[in-house]
Structures are given as structure tokens and as C-alpha cells.
């Protein structure tokens, strides 16, 4: 019975370690490289949003709904932010091109649509905002946060 108990403890320990690793990895914004095509995103040549977030979602994906709500909230707060969504199942070409392995996956781009950050899973609202507006932000400053005299 002791051996059986040890096996159960071992399985639980392995699950706990995996869960810890998973929680650290899940939704973490990581630096990324690449460039989105304006035509793919439906952004005109003269349009220049301060940043663009591209979300790949999936049908029947509950975490995707959470990400969508967070992005909508941030889009309402951050001036001139463009959010573009793709169903990864419908746009397999884009999912393959940008190496989207699971949904939800989001990309944060600079004004030139260069990919700066990406995250798989459900990033926190703070993590997305830091990616957009933090000191590492490669794009131009958020107009909503610029002092009035500098506008």
C-alpha cells in the first residue's frame, strides 16, 4: 500500500510541477519578430494606428472569449488601437504563416505592423497594457497618455 501511496504522491507532484510551469507560461507576453501584411489585416496604406493587436481565436474556445473581452476593454481605453481578429480554423494560411499553434494567440505590433510581442493563452489585462504602453514598447507613445502641451 505504501508503494501505491507513493505512486499517487508522485503523480500529484508531477501534476503540480507541470501546473506551475503551465501557469508561468500561459498568457505570458514574449518578444517576437515578424511583419504583418497590411492587406491581411485590412489596414489601408494611409492608416497608421498607434498599435495593432491581432488575435487568433477558435470556434468553441472559452479562453478566446475572455481574451476578446479584455481586448475590447483595452481598445476602448487606448486611443487609436486597432484590434483584428481571425478564426484560426478559417485562416489556416495566416495561422501557419505566423506560427500559431494554439488559440487564443495574440500579437502586438508597432505602427509599422512589425510584431513586437506575442502570447498564447489568456494574458492579463495588465500584461497586454504593459506590452502596448510599457517602457519596452517599440512604437510611438500612446496619444491618450501624452501631456496636452505636447500634442
Amino acid at each position, binding site marked *: 500500500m505504501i508503494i501505491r501511496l507513493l505512486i499517487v504522491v508522485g503523480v500529484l507532484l*508531477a501534476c503540480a510541477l507541470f*501546473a506551475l510551469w*503551465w501557469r508561468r507560461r500561459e498568457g505570458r507576453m514574449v518578444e517576437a519578430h515578424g511583419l504583418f501584411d497590411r492587406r491581411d489585416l485590412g489596414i489601408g496604406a494611409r492608416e497608421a494606428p498607434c498599435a495593432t493587436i491581432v488575435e487568433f481565436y477558435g470556434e468553441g474556445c*472559452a479562453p478566446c472569449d475572455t481574451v476578446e473581452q479584455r481586448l475590447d476593454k483595452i481598445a476602448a481605453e487606448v486611443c487609436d488601437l486597432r484590434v483584428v481578429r481571425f478564426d484560426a480554423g478559417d485562416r*489556416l494560411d495566416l495561422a501557419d504563416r505566423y506560427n500559431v499553434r*494554439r488559440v487564443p494567440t495574440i500579437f502586438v505590433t508597432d505602427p509599422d505592423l512589425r510584431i513586437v510581442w506575442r502570447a498564447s493563452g489568456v494574458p492579463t489585462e495588465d500584461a497586454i497594457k504593459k506590452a502596448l504602453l510599457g517602457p519596452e514598447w517599440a512604437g510611438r507613445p500612446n496619444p491618450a497618455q501624452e501631456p496636452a502641451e505636447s500634442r
Partner: protein
Amino acid sequence: MIDRNGHRWGAALSAVVLYVGLIFDWHWVAPAICVALGIGTAFGLRYSPLGATYRFVKRSLSLQIPVVPEEEAPPRFAQLMGFAFLLVATVGFYTVENMALGWTFTMIVAALQTLLASTGLCVGCEVYLIGKRFSARGATT
């Protein structure tokens, strides 16, 4: 649509039953949970005995836990995976009488259910979504 909380509760309950089964060498836990998962797979998760216990506890204790809606297809596929693994475990216990085979497959299911209950990571659901993408890719080529 199903309640995600019920799905996670069911996973926790089945994991506990499977772990207790291993500790006391109760082979019957594998076919018992296999049948419970099979019912959910065949008739829909609203008929799953595991999910029913969640609704019963919630109602009995008047718990005000909000429903977290989730598409049914991925968790249903996950239950099918659990059913298949426990079927192999049952065959291991009762047909070929290979205890190592039986407990290995039982513990795989217990571990996956533990992950679902503790982190919300549903490996079966992920497999379903990957499979769906591959089938869509196959249809387009």
C-alpha cells in the same frame, strides 16, 4: 453550451476516485469512471453523472457560483479520450490481467483530470482543436 465549472468539478471528482482506487487496489474504479465518461460522451455532458454531482452540490448548498459557458464539443471529445483510456485500463485489469497496463492507463486519466481540475488545462480539448484544424487543412488542400 455547458458549465465549465461542472466540467472541472467532474474532473476533480473522477481523479480523486481513481487515486483512491489505486491506493486500495480497487480495480472497479476504472470501469466505473469509464461508464460515467461514456454516458457523457454518448448522450451529452448534461447527462454525465460526474457533472450531475456538481449541480446537486451547488443546488443543495445554494452556492451562488456563476455559470461559465463553454462549447460542448471539445470537452465531450476529451471525455471520449478518457473513456478510451479507461477502456484499455479495464481490459488490462479484467481481460488480460495485466495490472501494470491497467494502472498506467488509469493514472494517465487521473493525471489529465488533475490538470483540468487544478489549472483548467483540458488536454483533450486541445487535441480536439488541433484535430479540427488539421481536418480543415485537409479539406482545403
